[in-house]
């Protein structure tokens, strides 16, 4: 495939055009990341009056800490849960909307709406609906004989934050899936139909493989989202409890660093979190990409 190429006459102009994005990246991503790395090798009092260089003490202590290992496990369950739930639901919605001819746009708008809700507000919403004493959902669940209490039951708490975080992400995934579905040539599905493939078979053998670039991209985005961007939801619903069951890595970074004012270990945690996401992304691009049909 031939790609379009623009040749700049001036040597300065391309850099100038790139500058805004580069400056933003440097100030908001690279600089704080560098600060976190520096901080993670230090032991400092909260006010920053004294600091000692402690090499890897913050890291070694973390790896001995059962709470930290617990947070790793919780993060794994959480991010897989969020990714699978939000992607499968949004794919389903996208397929449904794609079949609706006339009111598709209307449904699209409705489905994209939740994306505008701030994580803390979304968290509060779920907090109300699932509140063990006043919430509607625990009340309804009593009719099927289930006693919902995410204050005490670790499983309930995990389900709650997965639902809340996935709900938020459905809109985003949905948009990409709709766009992806629309780019699947009609002729292919029609040809399959003529060959006698039913709707189910058509979807799994024709449409879904063609969607794989979108699916792959969304998987990366969703895992990153679940690992980094869900702190507001956890804070508003479970605050990491009960007994640490929903204390995911990003929330632990916040709780230890900003509430506990324990900056060194907290910085070490955020560096590890950063590494995890870097590794995951590289793995995904190197290995999974090969199986993806672009």
């Amino acid at each position, binding site marked *: 495939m031939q790609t379009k190429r623009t040749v700049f006459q001036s040597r300065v102009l391309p850099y100038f055009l790139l500058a805004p994005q580069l400056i933003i990246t440097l100030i908001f991503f690279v600089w704080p990341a560098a600060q976190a790395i520096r901080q993670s090798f230090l032991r400092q009092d909260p006010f920053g009056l004294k600091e000692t260089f402690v090499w890897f003490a913050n890291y070694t202590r973390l790896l001995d800490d059962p709470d930290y290992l617990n947070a790793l496990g919780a993060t794994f369950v959480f991010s897989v849960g969020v990714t699978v739930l939000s992607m499968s639901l949004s794919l389903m919605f996208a397929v449904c909307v794609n079949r609706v001819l006339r009111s598709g746009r209307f449904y699209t708008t409705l489905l994209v709406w939740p994306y505008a809700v701030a994580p803390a507000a979304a968290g509060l919403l779920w907090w109300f609906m699932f509140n063990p004493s006043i919430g509607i959902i625990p009340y309804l669940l009593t009719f099927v004989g289930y006693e919902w209490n995410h204050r005490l039951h670790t499983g309930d708490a995990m389900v709650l934050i997965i639902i809340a975080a996935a709900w938020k992400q459905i809109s985003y995934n949905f948009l990409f899936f709709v766009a992806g579905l629309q780019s699947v040539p009609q002729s292919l599905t029609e040809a399959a139909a003529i060959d006698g493939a039913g709707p189910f078979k058509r979807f799994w053998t024709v449409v879904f493989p063609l969607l794989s670039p979108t699916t792959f991209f969304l998987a990366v985005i969703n895992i990153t989202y679940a690992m980094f961007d869900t702190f507001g939801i956890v804070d508003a619903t479970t605050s990491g409890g009960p007994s*640490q069951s929903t204390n995911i890595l990003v929330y632990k970074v916040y709780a230890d660093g900003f509430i506990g*004012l*324990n900056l060194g270990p907290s910085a070490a945690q955020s560096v590890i979190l950063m590494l995890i996401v870097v590794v995951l992304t590289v793995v995904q691009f190197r290995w999974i990409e090969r199986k993806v049909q672009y």
Partner: protein
Amino acid sequence: MFKKLSMAALAVALSATSSLAATEVTWWHAMGGELGKKLEEIATKFNESQSDYKIVPVFKGTYPETLTAAIAAFRAGQQPAIVQVFEVGTGTMMAAKGAVYPVYKLMADNKEPWDPKGFLAPVVGYYSDAQGNILSMPFNSSTPIMYYNKDVFQKAGLDPEVAPKTWAELAAAGKKIVDSGAAQCGFTLSYAATWVGLENYSAIQNLPFGTLQNGFGGLKTEFKFNGKEQAAFWDNLKKLQDAKVFKYGGPGGGAETAPSFYSQQCAVYMGSSASRAGVINNAKGFKVGFAPMPYDDTVTKDPKNSIIGGATLWVLNGQKNAEVYKGVAKFFTYLSKPEVQADWHQFTGYLPITNASYEFGQKQGYYEKNPGSDIAIKQIMRGTPSDNSKGVRFGNLTQIRDLIDQQFESVLSGKKTGQQALDDAAKAGNAILREFEAANN
């Protein structure tokens, strides 16, 4: 004539410069809602009482948020002159020697009257260093008390005028309440695993919370709250929870505790004496009784004083204009006035900070007119404070409290026994203490 004129001109000039030069003193605080309004009223009244200084109160969110904001501002060189820090942050503030301008020194440097003996001893003991110097200005201190629903007590066949005195009596009353259907739950605790359910439980039963006089003796302290008495207490709460007598209302302050008392779901609520105004406003349609915290008669026959919570005002170093500190000192003198203190105490339910303001209230007849309003005072003043009941002082206590909350939850969900949970909490807490010690040595 000329003399008179020049005097007048001088007076005008002086007043003009002084109003121009009113030094602004920033005060970051964590008092929202009604309390915040009252706090601003105090600042306004002080500003009106003189023209040299202007106190500017700024609401910065919850206690932890305010502390975090102040620390971040200090690191950036933008700190306020005064910051309100909750009692849990005391250990952190005391260790930050370069950041804090101790209040006893501030008052002496600015030649303001300062009488440490005028303050209530249990309050001021919490905020004094090993030499007995007061490091921060006591402002809003409270202590947990018991609120109970007299109507529910009546319905359950209990005497509404007699509150349970011991935890055993409370459990029996709670069982009666639940069995009779008078309410869905017997009692609920705010700060169930920390301030009320562990720190105050230990103090009242005279059990150590940590070594070195609960941390008052230095940074080498270690946690001792995993005693068999505390473990038994937690196991008992778990048992009571299973019997629906006790209801857990969430970690930290327990967001669901007070509402379940207001809605008459729970018959008894234990929380800060500063909840008094809120309880009276929200207890619609039922009569509220006030009582001291219950004690555990299997552990002690002679309950000690309870310990305080709430916050004090810390002065931060590094203001460029030295006049600011003069203003702070003047403001603190104003704050200690009996009538100012008594007004704040009576409006909010916080403890009167000085003996004089307590006496002021007595002279007014406030406590007779408002039965139950002096329970908190009597509770912190009873007996002689022991090393275990003076208070608790640990670095990074905010983080440690979270740990304890989580361990308590694993007892309630049946994953651990009280002893296992407290042992684990003490172990993890000690690791944090060692880190704090290392960072501050």
